[in-house]
């Protein structure tokens, strides 16, 4: 208990670091993921190819390698002004976007063809079909997988701690270097992660129940 009380400021920084890192990369991943999913289902071949390439490359690359790319190559090719936090958000967001894209795409594909055909036959426009028929149904199937992805993102964000971002893993390393009891530190850090992941899964379960439709 002393470990936690004595270093509460560090734990708090780490906790909120992980929260904000997860939140920021989640926003980036969701926006990019939906965009790339739109590319992948579009009737435009080059965009489809780009989407496929994006997903294949990012899904088969270890996240640690992406962090190295963000650290050494992004500053050279884009701009040198980014902080390690922003680079971590880029790496995490891009990586997770590939998985979000696949979840969204399979969500759209689960909507039965008849739904869209019926909508078209009563004269709805493309936007109407998307807004009123397809997306509401797709959203409901997408919620559960996206929830799991957000939990995975929280866990993946720990890697950022090794690339000079302040979050829970960097707190664990910092305290371990001070010679405190390693197992005790581990237990508190583990507890902090459990709190975040349980909160996320609770949130998504709530969302799922809210949107559930009796069929």
């Amino acid at each position: 208990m002393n470990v936690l009380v004595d270093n509460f400021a560090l734990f708090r920084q780490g906790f909120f670091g992980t929260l904000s890192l997860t939140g920021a990369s989640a926003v980036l991943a969701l926006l990019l993921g939906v965009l790339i999913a739109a590319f992948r289902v579009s009737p435009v071949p080059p965009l489809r190819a780009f989407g496929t390439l994006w997903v294949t490359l990012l899904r088969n690359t270890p996240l640690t390698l992406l962090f190295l790319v963000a650290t050494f190559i992004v500053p050279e090719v884009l701009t040198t002004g980014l902080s390690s936090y922003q680079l971590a958000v880029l790496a995490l967001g891009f990586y997770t976007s590939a998985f979000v894209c696949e979840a969204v795409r399979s969500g759209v594909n689960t909507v039965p063809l008849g739904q869209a055909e019926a909508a078209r036959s009563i004269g709805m426009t493309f936007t109407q079909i998307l807004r009123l028929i397809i997306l509401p149904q797709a959203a409901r199937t997408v919620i559960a997988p996206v929830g799991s992805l957000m939990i995975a993102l929280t866990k993946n964000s720990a890697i950022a701690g090794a690339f000079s971002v302040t979050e829970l893993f960097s707190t664990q390393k910092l305290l371990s270097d001070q010679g405190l009891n390693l197992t005790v530190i581990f237990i508190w850090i583990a507890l902090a992660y459990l709190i975040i992941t349980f909160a996320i899964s609770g949130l998504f379960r709530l969302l799922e129940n809210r949107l559930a439709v009796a069929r």
Partner: protein
Amino acid sequence: MTASVLYDAPGPRTRLRNRIYTVVGSLALAGLLVFFAMRLNSKGEFKSYMWDLFQYAGVQQQITDGVVATLKAFALAAVFSLLLATVFAAGRLSDHKPVRIAASAAVEFFRALPLIIMIYLLWATVFEPFWALVIGLTLYNGSVQAEIFRAGINSVPKGQSEAAYALGMRKTQVMLTILVPQAVRAMLPSIISQLVVTLKDTSLGYLIAYTELLYVGRILAGNTPTLGNYPYFQVLLVIGTIYIAMCMLLSAVATWVEKRARRSPKGAPPATPEAEALVATAE
């Protein structure tokens, strides 16, 4: 692009519009590519001397050693995690409540933690990097695979085990001769996708200085300055390609297995939604 939920078969005007989008999209993507290539070129990344290091036998040997070290950690972690998963899954499906509770607690705990936190603890306390990595990967992936196994067993229709019990088979017999063979067939693609995750996660060895592929690459790039420039781009490109090739090879095995299972006369029972959600979690 004939029957899609999103689009009808395109008419003449839509076809024209799509053609315009195709041209515009191609130009935009080509522009992006040219922009990146020019930025890299302006930093001299395409100069031949930046790529010279790959010609040295020593460097090639280092990269090969890195691949071998990665595969070694992966192979051990894969075998151990599948063994552990069998134990955990058997525990969670046990008829004895204390066993069930203990197994569930272990699985949920290891699954909920970031892998690197566990690996770091193992490394900082007693283990050398290699074993810290292997044990960490085993605990995490073993728990995830246990959930896949369990979902697979649960996806076998109930009538199967009921019929077996009615024939007078015992618990172990039902499990080994009826449930497991069917479950494995249903879950093999998911098991292999999780193995791909295991392979990717061996790169966490980089963070505890285990000399696997990524670590080798980082050291290689950091130690061979060429005219004041470090060849990070070149090395990461080569190493990234190796990783992607290895993962895609494993994924190809998964696809092949899936196709084979579908082709077999008995057919594969469809994976349950629960099982699919699990695979998504694993990623």
